Structures are given as structure tokens and as C-alpha cells.
């Protein structure tokens, strides 16, 4: 399978380990990615003029004939929202006034979780064990969706109570926890000017994830990840409370199950150490190997 790859700006800075693990996982799944030539920022949530933001998304879409894949939920939502706006002929006409290559219709836009889910489902028909060489049995993962993966609706999964991430966690051998705030917005888009407002929500999300019994949280969006991971030590300091909850990107979790080494998944780049997750997995595997060894004897 060959897909056009839209990295989004964050992939080249604060979300580097998301890109590293996205590329590694796609390689392992036999998915070829062709980066969109001269792609531009989608505008994220910061371009209020809708004609402009729609044109920004459209400029990326017209640069390829392949289905487009991105790992960023904001980019993903922006591309999908733009295609909805562009159904309107006035909007299409306006946007095309500024575009060099004209927008002439929808195309398939995928989030990396869809790509992984599909690749694994496709492989299961043949041999389920082939790809998942290191099942994450014994690990508990809090599925954090954030807002934009499923919105503005009509796409990947229910915008109210999706299950695609829990399903993937199970497929990879781990157990999803009952994480009540899995859809609660991380407030990342207003973090820079409105830090106080965001902090209050973030701490609730982290406490709830912890209370769900999770060994780690799974993130699908680089902004959610930034808010929960890099920001976590700052929140701890601010509140004088230890949280110490590793936040893995969905691609880091999937990569581990596909047998990739932590270094191949950029796991040393996470702010909150991912060591406890790896150690627990090794311990469980060690115990299992011991039991199996005992049986053989």
C-alpha cells in the first residue's frame, strides 16, 4: 500500500517521536509513505477566517493523487472539515481563486490509527501472529482520544464515544482501562495565552487516567501529547503532586507490539520516562518464559 504522507509542522519539532514512530510502524507494516511535496501548515485552530483555513487545507490535498495519511488529529480534522466546506460551490470557487492547482473533489484522508487498524485487520485474514510478534499482554492502557480525531463527525468513529483505540489496544494484546475523561479536551489550543485555564483541565485528565489503573496513556494527537507529557513535570511542580504517568503515542505502543525496539520508536524522547512500561513488559515476558520453561522441563 502506498499513501501520501502529511506530517504537519509539529512532526518536525515537539512531536518528533511521533513522526519517528509513525515512519517505523508504517515500514514494519509494509506501507509506503510519500511525503507531500511542499506541504503547508493546516492552520490548526488558529486561523479564524474559514475561507483561508479551508484554502490552507485544500492546498495540501491537491498536491497528491494518493490517499492522504497524517498522524496529527488536528491536521486530520482540518483536512476533513475543509472537504466538507468545499462541497459548497461558493467556497470551492473562492478557494480556487487563490490556489495554483485547483481543488476538484474529495479524497481519502486517513489518520495513522486507521492505517494501523486496517493493516492489522488485513493481515489477520492470513496469519494474526505474523505481525504482532510481541503482544503487550499484562499492560493496561488508558485510551485518550482528545477532541479532534472524531470531529467534525461523519468520519473514523463516533464523535461521542468512539472505540477504535480500545479495539487496537486489545488487538495488540494490552487491556484498555475504563477512562472516563477519554474525550475531554486537553485545552492545548489555548495553552499558550491561557495557561491557567488549561492546567486545571489537564490535571483532571491525568488524575482520571491514573485512577483508571493505567500503566500508560495512549495519545493520538501531538498537541494532546505535549500537554500531557512534556507539560507533566511542570504541572507536578505547580501542584506539588506526583503524577509520573508515561504518555505513549499510539505508534509507539503499536511499534512495541510489532517487535520494534524502543530506540526505533523515539521512546527516549518522551518527557515522562517510558522505562516503567518497558520494564513491566519485560517482567511479564520473563515470568511467562519461566513458566513455559518449567513446562518444558
Amino acid at each position, binding site marked *: 500500500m502506498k499513501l501520501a504522507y502529511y506530517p504537519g*509542522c*509539529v512532526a*518536525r*519539532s*515537539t*512531536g*518528533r517521536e511521533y513522526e519517528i514512530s509513525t515512519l517505523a510502524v508504517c515500514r514494519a507494516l509494509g506501507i509506503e509513505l510519500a511525503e507531500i511535496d*511542499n*506541504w*503547508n*501548515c493546516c*492552520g*490548526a*485552530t*488558529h*486561523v*479564524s*477566517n*474559514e*475561507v*483561508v483555513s479551508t*484554502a*490552507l487545507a485544500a*492546498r495540501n490535498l491537491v498536491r497528491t493523487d494518493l490517499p492522504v495519511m497524517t498522524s496529527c488529529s488536528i491536521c486530520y*480534522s482540518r483536512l476533513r472539515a475543509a472537504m466538507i466546506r468545499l462541497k459548497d460551490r*461558493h467556497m470551492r470557487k*473562492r*478557494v480556487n*481563486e*487563490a*490556489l*495554483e492547482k485547483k481543488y476538484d473533489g474529495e479524497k481519502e484522508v486517513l489518520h495513522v490509527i486507521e492505517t494501523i487498524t486496517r493493516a492489522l485487520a488485513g493481515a489477520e485474514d492470513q496469519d494474526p501472529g505474523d505481525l504482532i510478534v510481541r503482544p503487550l499482554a499484562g499492560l493496561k492502557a488508558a485510551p485518550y482520544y482528545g*477532541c*479532534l480525531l472524531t*470531529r*467534525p*463527525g461523519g468520519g473514523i468513529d463516533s*464523535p*461521542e464515544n468512539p472505540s477504535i483505540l480500545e479495539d487496537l489496544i486489545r488487538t495488540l494484546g494490552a487491556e484498555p482501562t475504563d477512562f472516563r475523561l477519554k474525550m*475531554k*479536551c486537553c*485545552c*492545548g*489550543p*489555548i495553552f*499558550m*495565552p*491561557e*495557561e491557567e*485555564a488549561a492546567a486545571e*483541565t489537564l490535571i483532571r485528565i491525568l488524575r482520571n487516567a491514573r485512577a483508571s489503573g493505567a500503566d500508560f496513556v495512549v495519545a493520538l494527537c501531538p498537541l494532546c501529547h505535549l500537554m500531557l507529557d*512534556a*507539560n507533566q*513535570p*511542570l504541572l507536578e511542580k505547580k501542584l506539588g503532586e506526583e503524577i509520573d504517568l508515561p504518555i505513549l503515542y499510539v505508534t509507539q505502543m503499536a511499534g512495541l507490539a510489532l517487535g520494534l525496539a524502543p530506540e526505533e520508536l523515539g521512546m527516549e*524522547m*518522551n*518527557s515522562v520516562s517510558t522505562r516503567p512500561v518497558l520494564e513491566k513488559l519485560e517482567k511479564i515476558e520473563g515470568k511467562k518464559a519461566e513458566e513455559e520453561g518449567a513446562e518444558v522441563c
Partner: protein
Amino acid sequence: MKTEATTTAATTTMTPEGEKFRDRVLVLAGAEVKTCIQCGTCSASCPTASLMDVPIRKLVKLVLEGEKVEALASRSIWLCTSCLLCTVRCPRKIRPMAVVAALKTIYEEEGKRCKDSVFEGIFARQIRDYGRISEFLLSAEYMIRSPSSAAQIMAFGAELVPKGKIELGFEAARGERIEGIEEMKRIFELLGDDGREEGESEKAEETEEAEK
């Protein structure tokens, strides 16, 4: 009957400027905003509602009543995280988030400024000039323009720099830039700055269609 009388009163007292403001929001956010039944689903769904001075539901009401000054003065428009929950839930298929976006656009057009609009301005200008966002440049420029943010940004930088996620040094900090920047400029200048006239022409077309 009483409700009807109130509505009529509100319409008749709307100033020409109020009317112009309402119409501009309707062009930017969609004419369906007029069908709002004030049910409050948007406010009840909003993740930052508890921090807002004016609930989203009331913001929509202010728009429809042409209460420009009050609507634009609300801190709520800058506390919206664009999570779209209001938009997927609205029983009238209105996009309350688009109303907020319209208010931000008008706020900026009127030359008003606050720390949040400064941030959005820097963000948009970087896309227009470079095609992509450099998080280093974004933070640095915002810190200069809004010095009270310095402590927070420096603390975050101290987390990110050792991880190699924010690189210092001119070349790295400059970030990635794209070729064909004229197209980016055109997107912002052609579609952004003359958006007001576009609004009017679209409205004229709408009236024409309605007349037919």
C-alpha cells in the same frame, strides 16, 4: 405572546451597525445561526464553559441581537479550544464554534488586540510568510510581544530542548520553509483581507436567489 414582543423589540432597536455586525457573522458562520433555539446544548458541552464570562449560547444570542460591543468584549471567544463538541451536538446543525471564529475574525479586522489575538496573528503570519510553523519562532515571537508569558515558555523550553525537540541555533530554529510562498500570500491576501466584500457579494447572491 410575551416572547414575541421581546423579539420584535430587539429587532426594532437594532442599530444599523448592529445589523451589519449580525449579517457579517451570518456570512462567516452560516445563515443557519438564525435558527438557534437557545437550548444551551453548546454551553453544556463546552469544556471551558466554567471559565467563560458569557456562555456560548448567550454569545449566539448577542450576535443575533446585533450586540456587537458586548459580544466582542467577551473573554469567551478566546477560551474556545475549537474542540467542536458544540458543533457535533447542536440540534439545529449550527456550528457555534464557527460563530466564535467569526467573532475572532471581526475582532481582528477592527484592529482590536489582546494577548490571544496577538498569538493568532503571529501564527497566521508565520504560515503566510514561511508556509510552516516553527514552534521555536512562534514561542520566541510571542514571548517578545507578550512578556508575561516568558516564565511559562522558558519552563517548557527547559523540558523540550534537552530532548532535541526544540533546537537552538539560527538554522534549526528558523524551521522548515516551503517553496512557492507567493501562493501562501495569495491565500491570505486574496481570501483573508477582502473577506468583507466577499461577504457582501455572497449575501447579494443569496438575496438574488431568494428573490427568484
